[in-house]
């Protein structure tokens, strides 16, 4: 091989020092684009008219470091030290836009094959991916530690490879923006400020990535595994600084720091040609349609090396093998004439490569073929090669025509990511079709509908979980090929999509039990396709491809046809409610689905809810339905379950997160349903994400838990319970409102609400205990304010006294006082002269007494209390009734909160003496005696023994609470107790004393108590 010298011409006048220069061929091989890091202008040179002066684009204010050309639309991107990336039309060089700006110089640019994406990177942190259509930044890939000096898009648009100054190579997955492989320090270490720059390049078929290695070689890495495949090692004496694949991927040209340019045969892993230059070559570019290599050196001088590959060897552009190929024996197999179509074909190939799926395949085949070639199997190859060449020519010309259209489409679609498509419509509780296996069309808490395809028709079975109660449904042979179904107690609805031209979408309803024969019905929709079906009491709904919501009655009457705002995602029915999820808009570039949910009340003809459906970023809806109580719920692919709540005017609450609940990694939760506190799901072993029909799936119950921040309290369970019960309460209250508006009896719900309130109080008390234990006193005070029953507040006071926190007890007492004050203010008009502290107890007890007028008073009192107290809910009266029932008139020990307090005490392992105090009130006389004694000892203690003082606070406080009970009871049962008159006076005064001492009660209160004292 003779060395032909390449004559270099000056393109850029540098400052005389070496600087990084770039050179590029345009796609039809007519123009050369050059740039230099020391020259702000970019020159476009017409090769066919070398005498014509180069067109200079002078928009940058500093040296241009990076160039990139895209095929469609033909445009040139330039990146500069002045931190900007500019876009020009090509070849006329019209400035189009400033695509983006960085804060530091740009070092590298790359277009993807279709030209829809531009990657730009430099000394800045992160690689920017820019959609060229609107110059929007679609992703920033961060992971490199040093400045990024080389970027290369995989020809199939799946990966982006990047290399930084430290020699680290990262494979980025374009669809997700994640780093798939990180190869640390595999390329030479270089400083971006000085030279050289690290580069890397994908082979045209995208199967291998070439990266300069550490041992003056080029290392090939596998596309998928990022494993080292082989190295090209030869005559480079210093590290390789640039490399470029020939258009057919057979050759690779490398430039080294040793001022050499080598051309390698990749298959043979051998250098076939070399050239030595005066200066270091910093950029190379193969002519896309000819055997030529453009080179540029660090001084800004460029030249064209033609022919780069010896003419005795295959052309670097030669897509089809064995053309013009000369084997070792020196036989020409084909005429020169054949070359032309082939080159044209391969040119098209090179340009349009990304548009056909077949291309990478054919490339692979070609490479294999060329291996054969080199092993001199030329005879058999000859014909094959010719055939292939003709084929490829045909294909490429065909492609060329389609190319523009396809490319345009691709521009639009690929600027969004492959993943971020609008989600398809789905039926909640269905599983994907599997060949030869039964699958679920619908699975809910009631039963399942399964189907299996069998020689052109399907076999559908309906099963109820509760075999004892559900109706028996005979299996059905389905000639329609139903893919959607829904099930409730009364019937099942099926629908099939359009298949082919003639097939029409059919909707069919099968009632399970009916008095009339032949009450099954079906509807056919012409040109319209059913997307989702839903079922409720007395109605059937189908959402179609025309965004119509069609509502039928159970008997098959067409009641309504409504228009929806967007393509449907899912729909589900519950009694008279129908919830439909639709797309609100196209999904965001980040991949977020924009969904909207509407709830229709079919019987009323109203739309109670219409709002957006929130999802975790980059996830899609996987399940949608109503809870057992009728709460709208949705689950997304990230495993977050949300429930619609009326709090804050209607909002979604995340009530379950699969990622937090998962015990092991290989579990997937397939949601079936939920109720107020539990989630029903089927646990599937990974990689399965959905259950199979056989073996019959078993439901697992999981506790709902809000994704709470890990608090310093360490009582996450309690906090969770607290919020969950509050949510439950708000749901009940909503229901009560609805019921009372409808004029229905709400007693049952009131009871439930009261029980829930009691449960909340219980939970709060436990939270207070843990707050006290971890010294969060402010939080404990806030919690006390949230207690809804006075008894609970008293319980809290007892609790904190038991925990020896007198300061907190005092605060709680003042909170209790305040609360009672507001109550008493509310009933100021009422002719009762009872003291603040006894009013509630009175109401509780007097209610049991037969006096009718007093009961009335109590009722008014409670009514007004509901107005004034913020926490009390309007079913106060019911609550009192309930409390009365529980207290049973005389036995305060049965009161739930008293019990709660006790439970908490026991949990806190508090002193035993408290329990007797709590029980004390059972026995009137005993309580009386003890109380007196307690008060006395209190007095003593306050005077004397300071050590016992703290302990004494406890009985004192409890005595306050209990004595209130006692006194009121005494009042109401006065005739029963013979000692009543004498002791009650005494007791009152002692109570007064204790209150005075402890709380420093204000005068107003004193007066009131005095008033009361005066009364008997």
């Amino acid at each position, binding site marked *: 091989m003779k060395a032909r010298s390449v004559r270099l011409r000056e393109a850029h006048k540098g400052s005389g020092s070496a600087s990084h220069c770039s050179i590029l061929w345009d796609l039809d091989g007519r123009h050369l684009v050059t740039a230099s890091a020391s020259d702000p202008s970019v020159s476009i040179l017409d090769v066919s008219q070398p005498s014509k002066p180069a067109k200079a684009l002078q928009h940058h204010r500093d040296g241009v470091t990076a160039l990139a050309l895209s095929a469609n639309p033909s445009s040139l991107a330039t990146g500069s030290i002045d931190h900007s990336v500019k876009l020009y039309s090509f070849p006329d060089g019209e400035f189009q836009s400033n695509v983006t700006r960085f804060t530091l110089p740009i070092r590298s640019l790359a277009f993807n094959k279709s030209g829809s994406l531009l990657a730009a990177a430099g000394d800045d942190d992160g690689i920017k991916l820019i959609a060229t259509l609107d110059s929007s930044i679609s992703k920033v890939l961060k992971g490199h530690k040093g400045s990024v000096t080389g970027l290369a898009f995989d020809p199939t648009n799946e990966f982006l490879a990047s290399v930084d100054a430290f020699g680290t190579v990262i494979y980025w997955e374009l669809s997700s923006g994640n780093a798939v492989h990180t190869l640390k320090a595999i390329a030479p270490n270089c400083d971006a400020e000085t030279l050289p720059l690290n580069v890397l390049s994908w082979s045209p078929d995208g199967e291998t990535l070439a990266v300069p290695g550490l041992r003056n070689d080029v290392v090939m890495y596998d596309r998928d595994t990022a494993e080292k495949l082989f190295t090209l090692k030869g005559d480079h004496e210093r590290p390789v600084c640039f490399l470029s694949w020939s258009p057919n991927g057979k050759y690779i040209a490398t430039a080294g720091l040793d001022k050499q340019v080598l051309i390698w045969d990749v298959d043979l892993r051998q250098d076939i040609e070399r050239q030595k230059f005066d200066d270091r070559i910093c950029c190379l570019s193969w002519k896309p349609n000819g055997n030529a290599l453009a080179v540029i050196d660090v001084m800004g001088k460029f030249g064209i090396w033609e022919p780069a590959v010896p003419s005795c060897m295959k052309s670097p552009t030669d897509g089809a093998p064995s053309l013009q190929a000369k084997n070792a024996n020196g036989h020409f197999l084909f005429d020169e004439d054949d070359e032309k179509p082939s080159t044209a074909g391969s040119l098209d190939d090179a340009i349009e490569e990304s548009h056909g799926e077949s291309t990478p395949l054919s490339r692979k085949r070609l490479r294999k073929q060329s291996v054969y070639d080199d092993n001199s199997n030329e005879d058999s190859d000859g014909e094959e090669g010719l055939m292939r060449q003709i084929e490829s020519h045909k294909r490429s010309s065909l492609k060329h025509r389609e190319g523009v259209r396809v490319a345009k489409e691709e521009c639009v679609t690929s600027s969004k990511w492959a993943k971020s498509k609008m989600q398809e419509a789905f039926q909640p509780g269905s599983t994907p079709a599997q060949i030869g296996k039964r699958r679920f069309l619908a699975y809910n808490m009631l039963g399942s509908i399964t189907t299996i395809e069998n020689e052109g028709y399907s076999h559908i079975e309906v099963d*109820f*979980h*509760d*075999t*004892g*109660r559900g109706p028996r449904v005979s299996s059905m042979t389905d000639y329609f090929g139903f893919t959607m179904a829904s099930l409730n107690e009364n019937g099942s609805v099926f629908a099939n999509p359009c298949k082919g031209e003639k097939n029409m979408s059919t909707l069919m309803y099968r009632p399970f039990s009916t008095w009339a024969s032949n009450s099954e019905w079906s509807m056919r929709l012409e040109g319209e396709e059913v997307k989702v079906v839903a079922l409720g009491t007395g109605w059937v709904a189908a959402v179609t491809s025309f965004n119509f919501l069609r509502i039928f009655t159970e008997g098959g009457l067409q009641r309504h046809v409504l228009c929806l705002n967007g393509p449907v995602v899912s729909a589900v029915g519950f009694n008279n409610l129908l919830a439909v999820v639709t797309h609100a808009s196209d999904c965001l570039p980040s991949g977020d689905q924009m969904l909207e949910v509407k709830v229709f009340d079919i019987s009323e003809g109203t739309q109670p809810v219409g709002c957006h459906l929130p999802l975790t970023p980059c996830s899609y809806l996987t399940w949608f339905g109503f809870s057992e109580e009728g709460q709208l719920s949705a689950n997304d692919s990230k495993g977050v379950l949300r429930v619609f709540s009326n709090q804050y005017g209607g909002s979604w609450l995340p009530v379950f997160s699969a990622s937090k609940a998962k015990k092991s990694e290989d579990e997937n939760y397939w949601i079936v349903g939920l109720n107020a506190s539990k989630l*029903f799901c089927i646990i599937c072993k990974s990689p399965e994400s959905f259950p199979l029909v056989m*073996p*019959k*799936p*078993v*439901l*697992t*119950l999981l506790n709902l838990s809000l994704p709470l921040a890990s608090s310093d309290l360490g009582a996450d369970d309690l906090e969770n319970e607290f919020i969950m019960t509050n949510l439950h309460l708000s749901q009940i209250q909503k229901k009560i409102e609805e019921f009372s508006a409808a004029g229905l009896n709400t007693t049952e719900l009131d009871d439930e609400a009261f029980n829930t309130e009691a449960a909340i109080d219980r939970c709060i008390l436990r939270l207070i205990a843990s707050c006290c234990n971890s010294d969060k006193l402010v939080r404990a005070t806030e919690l006390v304010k949230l207690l809804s029953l006075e008894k609970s507040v008293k319980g809290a006071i007892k609790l904190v006294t038991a925990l020896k926190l007198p300061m907190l007890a005092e605060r709680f007492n003042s909170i209790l006082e305040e609360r009672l004050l507001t109550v008493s203010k509310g009933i100021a008009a009422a002719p009762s002269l009872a003291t603040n502290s006894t009013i509630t107890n009175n109401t509780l007890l007097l209610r049991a007494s037969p006096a009718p007028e007093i009961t009335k008073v109590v009722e008014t009192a409670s009514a007004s209390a509901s107005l004034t107290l913020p926490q009390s809910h309007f079913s106060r009266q019911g609550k009192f009734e309930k409390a009365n029932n529980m207290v049973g008139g005389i036995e305060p020990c049965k009161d739930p909160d008293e019990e709660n307090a006790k439970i908490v005490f026991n949990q806190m392992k508090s002193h035993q003496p408290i329990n007797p105090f709590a029980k004390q009130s059972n026995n009137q006389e005993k309580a009386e005696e003890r109380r007196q004694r307690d008060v006395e000892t209190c007095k003593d203690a306050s005077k004397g023994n300071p050590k016992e003082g703290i302990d004494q606070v406890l009985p004192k406080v409890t005595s306050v609470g209990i004595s209130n009970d006692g006194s009121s009871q005494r009042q109401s049962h006065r005739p029963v107790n013979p000692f009543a008159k004498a002791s009650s006076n005494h007791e009152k005064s002692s109570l007064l004393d204790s209150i005075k001492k402890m709380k420093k009660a204000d005068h107003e209160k004193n007066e009131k108590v005095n008033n009361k004292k005066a009364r008997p």
Partner: protein
Amino acid sequence: MAGQSNPDLSVFSAPEVEFLAEDEMVEIVPNIRMEALNMICGDFGPFFPQIASKVPLWLAVALKKRGKCTIRTPEWMSVERLTQVLEAERESSREFQPLPFHYVEISRLLFDHAHDDIPDLYMVRSLIEDIRDVRFHKVETGLETISGRTHAVKLKNLSAMEVNIVRPFMVRALQAFYRHDSPQMIQQPRTMGGSRPQAVDRGPRRDLRPR
């Protein structure tokens, strides 16, 4: 021990051991909705279709007979677990692998009543039989090592059925050795005559301890 069919032998018959095993808890998946059952031995349920709950084996079998539930095979009754156990049993000639105390009876009951709920029924059955045979063989060979100097035999992880089989022999053999060793101490049980089994049943270990 009142239920023993033969008080003289101090051994349970196989059905008696099975009866005892019926108190073991198993998991069932009911296919009906049913209120909680309040039994003397405890409350079970309420039952919801397709939601697993734990009940005693006797209840599971009763429900299964009526077609009201499927019984979930215990975790140890899977083919891979049993294969592991069998291998381990074969490897060590002295030790027994931990298995449920009533594994023979439970598996027997499940094979009889819930054979359609057991995946790989045939395989599981043959594995369990193999394990049982290996273990029984081990017990028998272990008995040969009892000699005059043996005062106690330690058998860990022995199951109910295995114990039941060796109990009479073991007890008598130990007693015999004991008697030959120190005749004066054995006087007492002999005088007790008819009530001997009870005393034996309380365990020879206790008698051994003073030595």
